[in-house]
């Protein structure tokens, strides 16, 4: 399989954490240790829903040096395409599943003198692992964590208790308490790196505020997992394998191609890593680029497409696969 060798695991714990958020603990079926990872890494969880395989990326939140198990937290999203609903409604303790090896596309810059973490909602998860690592390495960090309401905020009290109120600040929308982004940006010592993870609007806002405050782009980091958006169904021709693939309303091109038995490279399945970049040979219509990987020029050229999140509208799309 192209995402790397999968690890067969058992779900050994399912813990409700907050409103619509559950934590899942995975241990290897063979009892062996999980690979070590680094803070910010994610895994792809394969969900077999009666023969229909879904694969979603989730950030690892267990301590990176603890290889007895992996833990993830899953928010049951309102307009779930099926992945988070499956995790919440079908997965029980004792179930067997498969997870990928860890991949890190949100690595902290260890040359930084200080790490400023900004989280929104479920975007907290990569930071939980990162903070374990920062604290173990003696790195200087600060977390600013925004939640909508107290009952939706996962791990708020735990984190304040673990790292202290001087390093962990909670902001609650319902209490009209917002992260003072501009003030934070203006008061950081030279050599600070900023990391933001949360809803797309928050990420865009923080990155923009960072550039406006004169921060170099090299010090601004973000992770956004885009999920494939539903859209009009369409067909694609795969020129090398000679197959015609139908992509349904709720399906991504990557999922449809995999369902047809074709092995395609992938890593993040969220438009960020670049692994599933595919050459377009014929495009009679409009490519709907939803990824954050290709440059604007590449998107405009119409020669490349990311299979995991992008779509197509028009008469014919031929891919070099």
């Amino acid at each position, binding site marked *: 399989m192209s995402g790397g060798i999968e690890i067969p695991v058992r779900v050994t714990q399912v813990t409700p954490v907050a409103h619509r958020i559950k934590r899942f603990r995975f241990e290897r079926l063979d009892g062996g240790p999980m690979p070590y990872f680094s803070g910010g890494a994610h895994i792809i969880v394969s969900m077999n829903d009666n023969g229909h395989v879904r694969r979603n990326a989730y950030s690892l939140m267990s301590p990176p040096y603890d290889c007895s198990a992996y833990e993830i937290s899953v928010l049951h999203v309102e307009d779930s395409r099926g992945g988070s609903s499956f995790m919440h409604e079908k997965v029980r303790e004792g179930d067997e599943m498969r997870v990928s090896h860890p991949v890190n596309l949100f690595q902290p810059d260890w*040359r930084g003198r200080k790490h400023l973490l900004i989280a929104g909602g479920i975007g907290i998860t990569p930071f939980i692992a990162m903070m374990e690592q920062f604290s173990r390495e003696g790195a200087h960090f600060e977390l600013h964590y925004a939640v909508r309401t107290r009952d939706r905020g996962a791990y708020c009290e735990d984190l304040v208790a673990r790292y202290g109120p001087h390093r962990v600040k909670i902001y609650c929308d319902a209490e009209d308490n917002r992260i003072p982004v501009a003030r934070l940006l203006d008061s950081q010592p030279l050599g600070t790196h900023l990391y933001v993870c949360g809803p797309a609007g928050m990420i865009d806002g923080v990155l923009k505020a960072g550039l406006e405050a004169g921060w170099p782009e090299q*010090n601004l980091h973000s992770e956004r997992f885009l999920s494939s958006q539903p859209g009009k169904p369409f067909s694609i021709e795969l020129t090398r394998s000679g197959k015609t693939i139908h992509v349904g309303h709720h399906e991504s091109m990557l999922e449809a191609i995999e369902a047809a038995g074709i092995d395609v490279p992938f890593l993040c399945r969220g438009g960020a890593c670049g692994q599933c970049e595919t050459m377009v040979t014929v495009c009679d219509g409009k490519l709907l680029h939803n990824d954050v990987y290709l440059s604007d020029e590449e998107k405009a050229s119409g020669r490349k497409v990311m299979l995991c999140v992008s779509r197509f509208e028009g008469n014919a799309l031929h891919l070099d696969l």
Partner: protein
Amino acid sequence: MLVEGIKSRPVYKGLSIQPRSRRHIFALEGEGAHALLERKAELDDAALSRSEILYVARGSQAKGYDEALRELGAQMFFAGPTIATLLFRLKGTLATAHMGTRLYIAGTEGFIGQAMMVALDHGMDHASIVTEHRGSLARRVQCVHCKGITEDVTHSPFPCSHCGLPLLVRDHYSRRLGAFQGVNIDAEEPGSAPDPEELFL
């Protein structure tokens, strides 16, 4: 004789002023003064009120660049007698600086490399530092054998100023040391080194 096409060779893109910076620090050496003076038009009063200029004349002594720089009217101007004094001053400035501060370095490669080392030491990312190469092409070279550094190397091969070995100057650059790498050219047959060529005037 020069080994070229090595990726670590730094690229200096020119002293473009970053308009959103909260503070501008200019570290200039010799002809590097021109890199800033030529951009006078881009520096309005607001930018100058947030600027600090550090200058060392070296080879451009008596050309009066220090006066021209002082007349720009930056919030702070410092002219140091040597690179070492300028770097000491730069360390002090960066130690208390905040994010939103941009560093601009212009001058010879040896100077850019040394100022860059100070910046990296204060956690700045090298790609965020704005640089422009002005003046002599002379290089700062580390002997890979004895680790001694020779400043202002204009010829290759040249005798290491520490151990005396004839060194070929490569484009291979170390950001950590702020120096190009010099490798003994006649190790197999001592005495067979080719004549030095003046490559970096």
